[in-house]
């Protein structure tokens, strides 16, 4: 197949695929991902920071950075692809995601703390 001369469709498509990444992009993304994966595992497994809250913040921060690296290097996100529609749908998804996550945690946290303490006996005699 590859030895055959290309028809117009293939050549036309080839010019489109220039946005599908380069060797340098993939290798950069991979090296950054390895570093950004190794650091949180090292922090948790080695108990380096000696403070679980600080470690948790660091782990989540590094995860966000690594997600951004993947989006740019592997998924080739940029402001121009598909006329900006991919970025717009991503931002929309992120808004819904933040509302769903923070809303669930907020509501359920208050539901838990405002729940009346009761013994199994109380629960059986509930109206």
């Amino acid at each position, binding site marked *: *197949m*590859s030895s055959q001369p290309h028809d*117009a*469709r*293939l050549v*036309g*498509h*080839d010019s*489109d*695929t220039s946005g*599908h*990444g*380069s*060797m340098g992009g*993939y*290798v950069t*993304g*991979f090296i950054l*991902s*390895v570093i950004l*994966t190794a650091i*949180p*595992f090292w922090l*948790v*497994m080695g108990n380096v920071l000696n403070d*679980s809250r600080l*470690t*948790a913040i660091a*782990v*989540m921060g*590094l*995860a966000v950075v*690594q*997600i951004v690296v*993947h*989006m740019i290097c*592997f*998924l080739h996100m940029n402001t121009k692809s*598909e006329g900006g*529609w*991919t970025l717009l*749908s*991503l931002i*929309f*998804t992120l808004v*819904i*995601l933040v509302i*769903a*996550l923070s809303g*669930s*945690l907020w509501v*359920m946290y208050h539901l838990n703390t405002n729940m009346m303490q009761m013994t199994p006996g109380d629960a059986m005699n509930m109206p």
Partner: protein
Amino acid sequence: MTTKTDLTAPGTVPVFFVEEEHGHAEGSTMLGFWIYLMSDCLIFAVLFATYAVLGHSYAAGPSGKDLFELPTVAINTSMLLLSSITYGFAMLAMDKERQGQMLFWLVITGLFGLAFVGLELTEFASLIREGATPQRSAFLSSFFTLVGTHGLHVSVGIIWLVTLMVQVMKHGLIPENRRRLLCLSMFWHFLDVIWIGVFSFVYLMGVLV
């Protein structure tokens, strides 16, 4: 064929307008697939939210600290990360019209994917053997749902990968196969993005707290 040549005057080249429309459809396929991925992202967001709410409801059962083995998770993570870059190499080979090289990288990607799913199933099996079944506590229900859904996605991705490899071997690198491979590329890298959330939020934070 003879009737067609009769319709055009000898020497003139027939003009087709279908080609351009096809190119347009290909462009919108990628956007449509991206929107599907975003809706898939919302499924995972809801499952993450469920896990965030129920993750500490142990029902006097085992917690993440008792159950999770981080070395296994680290190997799992590296399997998925390696499969991501090998898929990238396959796409680069596709751009250079090297079909054999591309198929080689796709096989490697599939093997890394299989290793990931295999390790995850082994982990699930050992959890269930220890009595940490999904029925044990709300924490374990949400854990198995979230991680299981991701594992299911990877398994479907592997089936898709094998299907496309057969397609490429049968029909070569035709535009339709390129489009499918690019869609799978997005799907595969997207699953790696979700896994970053899983290993950070579920495993590392689970061991921490």
